[in-house]
């Protein structure tokens, strides 16, 4: 004996019209959700990039659009922001963030950790002026090449990329300079002092063999050299941001 299949109305109590509209909204919403990690941190020039930029208002408004690449592609070394605060010529305080002894509870420690990683990442991924100019020259040559060969259609994504980079580069420089400045001023405000030097430092991951031979994770040999990223006086006005000052 076959059991009669339940009708759609029995399964789903909403009217057909209501279900159709809801389905449409759900599909559109899922496109928004999936397009986030499809466009961040990497996107194609002609497909996902433009889709991501079109959907940016929704992503930004609803706090979607994240990449979700946790611990990918590899769990890497960590990055510290080290600071030296001076009162006149005297070194008043030396510290760093994140600092497990000072930042508590743990979720707050993690906020400081993310801030130090953000600063490092910003510095690391933003090219200096020479590299930026080199990229622009390369793109210009490519565009000329395609135009010379009568392949004008091929230049569109290159032109778009060149123009976008040209528009975003000064903003990146400004953004990083602003961030460094505010970090410096906040540390001076919190700890006193008249002048501050900010550094970034990488703590490498010791190999299993090194650790098996007795190396501790806090061994100084894992630390890179300090890399000066800025020097500020208390309540200094934010200096103008010449292109390329980031590194």
């Amino acid at each position, binding site marked *: 004996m076959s059991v009669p299949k339940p009708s*759609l109305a029995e399964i789903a109590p909403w009217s057909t019209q209501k279900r159709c509209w809801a389905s449409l909204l759900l599909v559109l919403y899922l496109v928004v959700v999936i397009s986030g990690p499809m466009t961040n941190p990497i996107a194609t020039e002609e497909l996902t990039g433009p889709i991501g930029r079109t959907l940016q208002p929704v992503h*930004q408004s609803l*706090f979607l659009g994240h990449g979700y690449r946790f611990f990918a592609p*590899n769990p890497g070394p960590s990055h510290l922001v080290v600071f030296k605060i001076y009162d006149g010529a005297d070194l008043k305080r030396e510290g760093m963030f994140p600092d497990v002894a000072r930042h508590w509870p743990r*979720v707050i420690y993690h*906020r400081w950790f993310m801030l130090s990683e953000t600063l490092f990442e910003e510095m690391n991924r933003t090219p200096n002026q020479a590299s930026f100019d080199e990229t622009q020259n390369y793109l210009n040559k490519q565009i000329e090449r395609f135009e010379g060969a009568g392949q004008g259609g091929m230049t569109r994504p290159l032109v778009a990329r060149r123009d976008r980079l040209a528009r975003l580069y000064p903003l990146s420089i400004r953004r990083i300079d602003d961030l460094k400045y505010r970090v410096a001023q906040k540390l001076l405000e919190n700890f006193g002092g008249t002048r501050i030097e900010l550094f970034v430092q990488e703590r490498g991951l010791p190999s*299993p063999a090194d650790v098996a031979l007795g190396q501790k994770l806090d061994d100084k040999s894992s630390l890179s050299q300090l890399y000066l990223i800025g020097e500020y006086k208390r309540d200094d006005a934010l200096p103008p941001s010449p292109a390329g000052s980031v590194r």
Partner: protein
Amino acid sequence: MTSPSSMLQNYFNNWLVAWNRFWFERTDPIVLSLLRLLAGALILYTHFAWSFELETFFGSRSIIPETYRSQLTGELDFFWSHFDWMPSALLWPSHVVVLILMALFMVGFQTRITGIATVFFVISYANRATGAQFGLDQINAFLALYLALGPSGEYFSVDRWLKNRAGQSAVIPGVMTTISTRLIQIHMCVVYFFAGTGKLLGETWWDGTAIWGAIANLEYQTLDLTGLASHMGIVNIITYTTLFWEVSYPFLIWPRLTRPLWILMAFLVHLGIGITMGMMTFGIVMVIGNLAFVTPQFVHGFVHRQRA
């Protein structure tokens, strides 16, 4: 013999039924209510913790420039935060109000209203703290969003207690419960899919040493597992298991046969990360998201066993 057109018709009809069953059948909101209670508690804690550094991150001279998040995209700026237009004198009073609203959402009082307020403030805090946010904020935000969308205050809530007192004791399963739960489930799959496939690009996930990268990172460490340096075979197994579980999650979390195992793995992986790498809040929020895959019957059974 069945003709191709009738096969196609049959396939389309089955697809339609499956789609409607997936999104639009009625579901008991007990799972959603449990998620509200747990996610609400975590969201409250996450934002309470900001109290220790409120001036530093949200004050008028915050460590992160107000313009930082808009400069990140450089093109469109639809990021928003109430901190942008709030007088600095109201920083602490508004923070207390926000915590009260989040506490009310957690206990399920006026859940719809406090739920919407919670989403608003979770996003608002996260946007203002761009540069210091991480996965926790992302999961907090979408959980709050979907919990505000569905009737998450039907169980374990003050709203329910008030309804019971007024004699409205029946909980009616609804379609919005299904939609909210499905959105959480799908969003979790999206998170794991991209987290997993992102790892496939990393050589340490292939040579089996990725977990060593987590163990040997001093800034993350809360439990010393460096003794595993002499037992890299175990590290290899944990690495491959984690990778396989994460990549396969969007596919194997749905079948009834594999679902309990994949949820169990979520508990092990995320609480393991929480205990050893000091990311307990992130571990817990991921576990909470995974609970969206638990059936209402299971939660009812669990509650009855606790009461018995």
